[in-house]
């Protein structure tokens, strides 16, 4: 009776549920600590600057290059399709709206998670497994406020800027391919774009999205690093989990935010 499949299945479900709740609880407590101990970041802005350099400035190249290429592809594909309906000038609207509303925040967040998020997890995980964090505590240095908090705020600050750079580069790429290479009228390209992109409805909502994604990706990356098993394999698994979980979280959050922002009215 105790060994039948249903019984074992129930045990598995129960264990997974308890593990999940446990993890959500400790992640929330972790974020609560991080936000409570943010004072150090204000007192020592040097730490924050280092992290903005690490998370933001070093991500510039990948963001600029991928933004440009996404814009080029969008422009090319949009032009090929819109040409059939004789409205090739609307390609500006297409590129701008898809970048500002969706692709900018989402792709920038995915790139950020795989470039900066994974590095954050690895850094904290290795500090944990080589007992550097414990050593700090022994010296009465709080590892939260010295290591984790500046990382969090650095990434949180960088994310919306990276998303904006991505969108701007993408629109520039769309301009390059359609106006400069293919020869769509430049005036119509910009004026149709300006007529249909709303600052509040489209651009600000895109920025709000990237702020939410920045919070989620940084929280996941730091928590996974802090939570990992202090072994080589534990760190490598934590890095993998960071990338997978942040990608899923970004896509799911994007759906929820889009449902709230762009429906109705």
């Amino acid at each position, binding site marked *: 009776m105790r060994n039948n499949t249903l019984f074992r299945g129930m045990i598995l479900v129960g264990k997974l549920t308890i593990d999940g709740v446990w993890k959500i609880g400790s992640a929330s407590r972790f974020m609560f600590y991080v936000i409570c101990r943010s004072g150090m970041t204000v007192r020592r802005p040097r730490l924050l*600057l*280092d992290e*903005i*350099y690490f998370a*933001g*400035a*070093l991500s*510039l190249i990948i963001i600029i290059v991928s933004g440009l290429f996404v814009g080029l592809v969008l422009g090319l594909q949009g032009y090929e399709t819109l040409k059939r309906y004789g409205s090739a000038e609307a390609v500006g609207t297409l590129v*701008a709206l898809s970048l*500002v509303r969706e692709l900018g925040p989402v792709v920038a967040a995915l790139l950020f998670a795989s470039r900066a998020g994974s590095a954050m997890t690895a850094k904290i995980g290795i500090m944990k497994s080589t007992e550097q964090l414990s050593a700090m505590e022994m010296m009465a240095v709080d590892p939260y406020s010295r290591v984790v908090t500046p990382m969090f705020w650095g990434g949180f600050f*960088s994310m*919306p*800027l*990276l998303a*904006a*750079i991505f*969108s*701007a*580069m993408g*629109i520039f790429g769309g301009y390059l391919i359609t106006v400069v290479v293919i020869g769509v009228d430049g005036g119509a390209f*910009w004026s149709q*774009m*300006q*007529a*249909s*992109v*709303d*600052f509040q409805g*489209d*651009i600000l909502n895109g*920025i709000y999205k990237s702020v939410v994604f920045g919070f989620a990706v940084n929280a996941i990356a730091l928590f996974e690093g802090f939570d990992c098993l202090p072994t080589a394999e534990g760190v490598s698994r934590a890095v993998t989990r960071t990338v997978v979980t942040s990608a899923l979280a970004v896509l799911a959050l994007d759906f929820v935010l889009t449902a709230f922002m762009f429906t109705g*009215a």
Partner: protein
Amino acid sequence: MQRGTVDIWVGIFVTVGFLGLLFLALKVGSANNFSVSDGYVVSAEFDNIGGLKVKAPVKSAGVVVGRVDRIVFNNSTLRATVTIRLGRQFEFPKDSSVSILTAGLLGEQYIGLDGGGDIDLLVNGDKILLTQSAMVLEKVIGQFLFNKASESGKKN
């Protein structure tokens, strides 16, 4: 890492980021459109608004002069009451007329505002009396077929 290098790169990153935001706000967004909250409100009643939506443009002589603020169904007259917000800098005579038009064959619907000849101007809360409803394709086709049928009826 040298302090100076970090500072320079963070400086470059933040500057480029804000330049990107500025580009989005000024070049991509509709910075030249007046804000919707600014201006005065007039209303008009239509028999049928077709596919008109809130925030649709109000154009006079092809220039955007306002936006549709609210669309409600008036149960006492069984017509649609459309509230329009016009920019403060635009002034129209009291006997102006509004009609619901379509941009292109498949385009969005918008409100066309034609100025009248009255000396008095529209002010906040006024009601525009001369309205023309949206063209509904089925009705137009129906009317066309009806005319054709009556024409051929006369010939016989």
